[in-house]
């Protein structure tokens, strides 16, 4: 094809996304639990850090399992499962400093966990009692965003605000801050996400674009969104991109941490592609057997993000059975709390619908609210 003068066909060079992530994949812990090394992103982890990652992932998975069950029992309207993506989320979440700010999608339950958001609040949204009930400012963790990709721009703007606040590149580690924008492989096709790349590059904004490439956007495979590895998208916008093993919590942590540090220091945006797999359905209403092979799922089971850490911890004597048992107990307790808490969650009141439409309520909305209140009273009076 080079007779056209454009060099070899790029699709041939890069190939579509390889199922093992390809040679460019940054990995520090193999699926078999072997610690490997990387020329750029290597890093030592303390036993406590490693146990912490493991604990976070186990508890996050438990939240997910409980929520899925609660949906089956009719307690939630829907649930977006993260099964298989625990390492990507805990790695990204633990790399944050308190002053960093996160803009999640609807699936970042593991990151929410790292930010101290009570999982019950996540359930509330999927139960339909509210649209999000944690305080973004308190946790430096934004509300879930459902319109695909919109939050990538919010993150970029927030990062521009940090620049204006003088909390970027000061050299003070307790002060310098950055933003993480989460989104999926499918979202990478949205105009908003690509515009976010442009704004972030143009203003050199301190934002890390953290894309969990879980290979699927509902039923659409990653090949529909990109014919080359996604992390390379960033290069065309003039900032670095890197593909990390999203099922490897150590590598995800190390890469995200480096990207955040780069941003905090004032060196601008980075794109992190966390290469992972959506082990469950898209949401509890989805039926993936209609569009994907169970073989693929089986193959990815061998790369489970949690078991590889457990193997490593055990093999190196960093945990024992008692510790594991204790964690199990903690998970059971969490599960019980979620089940009970979810069912006990009070429904909103009819008139809540009118609250917070505006910071300064309008007369016309007040009249509508009062009219509806009066209407509801007629039923109470009628004893209905």
């Amino acid at each position, binding site marked *: 094809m080079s007779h056209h003068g454009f060099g070899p066909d790029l699709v041939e060079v890069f190939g579509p996304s390889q199922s093992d992530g390809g040679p460019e994949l940054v990995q520090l812990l193999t699926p078999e639990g072997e610690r490997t090394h990387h020329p750029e992103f290597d890093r030592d982890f303390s036993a406590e850090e490693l146990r912490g990652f493991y604990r976070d992932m186990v508890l996050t998975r438990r939240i997910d399992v409980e929520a899925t069950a609660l949906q089956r029992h009719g307690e939630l309207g829907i649930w977006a499962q993260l099964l298989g993506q625990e390492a990507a989320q805990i790695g990204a979440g633990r790399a944050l400093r308190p002053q960093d700010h996160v803009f999640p999608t609807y699936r970042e339950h593991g990151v929410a966990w790292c930010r101290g958001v009570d999982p019950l609040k996540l359930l509330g949204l999927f139960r339909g009692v509210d649209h999000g009930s944690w305080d973004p400012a308190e946790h430096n963790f934004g509300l879930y965003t459902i319109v695909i990709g919109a939050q990538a721009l919010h993150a970029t703007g927030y990062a521009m605000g940090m620049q204006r606040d003088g909390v970027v590149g000061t050299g003070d580690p307790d002060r310098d801050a950055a933003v993480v924008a989460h989104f999926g492989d499918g979202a990478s096709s949205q105009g908003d996400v690509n515009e976010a790349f442009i704004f972030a590059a143009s203003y050199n904004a301190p934002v890390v674009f953290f894309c969990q490439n879980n290979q699927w956007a509902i039923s*659409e495979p990653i090949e529909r*969104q990109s014919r080359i590895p996604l992390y390379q998208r960033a290069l065309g916008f003039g900032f670095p991109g890197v593909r990390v093993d999203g099922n490897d919590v150590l590598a995800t942590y190390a890469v995200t941490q480096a990207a955040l540090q780069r941003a905090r220091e004032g060196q601008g945006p980075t794109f992190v592609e966390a290469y992972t797999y959506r082990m469950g359905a898209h949401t509890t209403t989805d039926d993936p057997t209609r569009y994907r092979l169970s073989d693929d799922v089986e193959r990815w089971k061998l790369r489970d993000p949690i078991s590889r850490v457990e193997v490593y911890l055990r093999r190196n004597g960093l945990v024992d059975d008692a510790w594991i048992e204790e964690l199990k107990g903690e998970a059971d307790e969490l599960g019980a709390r979620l089940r009970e808490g979810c069912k006990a969650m009070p429904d909103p009141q009819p008139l809540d619908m009118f609250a917070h*439409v505006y910071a300064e309520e309008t007369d*016309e909305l007040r009249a509508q609210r009062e009219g509806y209140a009066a209407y509801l009273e007629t*039923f109470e009076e009628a004893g209905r």
Partner: protein
Amino acid sequence: MSETITQDRITLAKGLNMGLRRAMEDDPKVLVMGEDVGKLGGVFRITDGLQKDFGEDRVIDSPLAESGIVGTAVGLALRGYRPVVEIQFDGFVYPAYDQIVCQVAKMHYRSRGRSKMPMVIRIPFGGGIGAVEHHSESPEAQFAHTPGLKVVACSNPVDGYWMIQQAIACDDPVVFLEPKRQYHADKAQLDTSATPDPLFSSRVVRRGEHATLLAYGPTVKTALAAAEAASGEGRSLEVIDLRTLSPLDMAPVLESVRRTGRAIVTHEAHVNLGMGAELAARITEECFYSLEAPVLRVGGFDTPYPASRIEEEFLPDLDRVLDAVDRSLDF
């Protein structure tokens, strides 16, 4: 693969699916495009089986980008195709809004009739399914306000079957609203050998004398239930299924209101600047001396769509419609 005459009882989802299939059989230029419309058959299964039978070139799974879907559909239409675009949920049509109002709606006008834009934009709309934010919107007024677009809403399986075919056959772009709450709700008998009403016509679906209820899409069922309940109290309500929102088919509406003297419009969209506003303005202008009461509107409140646990408070229901009927009759 030609359609045999069926007289089965089918759901709205099935009616739409059959109608799409029939349109694709009848005209090889008809394409179906959207997110997850292929292998999955759409999240509501409206395009179920179509890719299997018509291939990936005619049933196109798209990248996740609504502006891209509609924008490429514009190009396909300019090349002579008739794209049927699925927007996965009402709340996700807005990234494509620019392409719809500036390109789809204006291409024929801009080109002084040289470039046709025979596109159908299917939107599952409305609430009541217990979903999270952005999955229960009613964006019809935002399209009906735009000249160059035609906007219709089906309310039942039989209309679903016919109207989707008529919309596809129409040489103008049609925003096609499907009440998602009804997809799998009620069944109706379909006779594929019948002759359908014209696409851009409203229909009296229940005769009555004391007031006229105007509804479309999901609220037709509510209005019919209200009329039924009212009849128990000796009140005879006429119900009109508007079916077409732009253009409006005012003749049957005006005829009815002149007879009853009262009109109540009900839709899930916010009342403020909703279809009810336009209907109220036109009815009042045309029937000023026949009206016994102002046209009343029962719709979604002027708040964002609330959390689903209170969505039934937001949505117009039988009681709120009957309350408006009372207010109209007592006026």
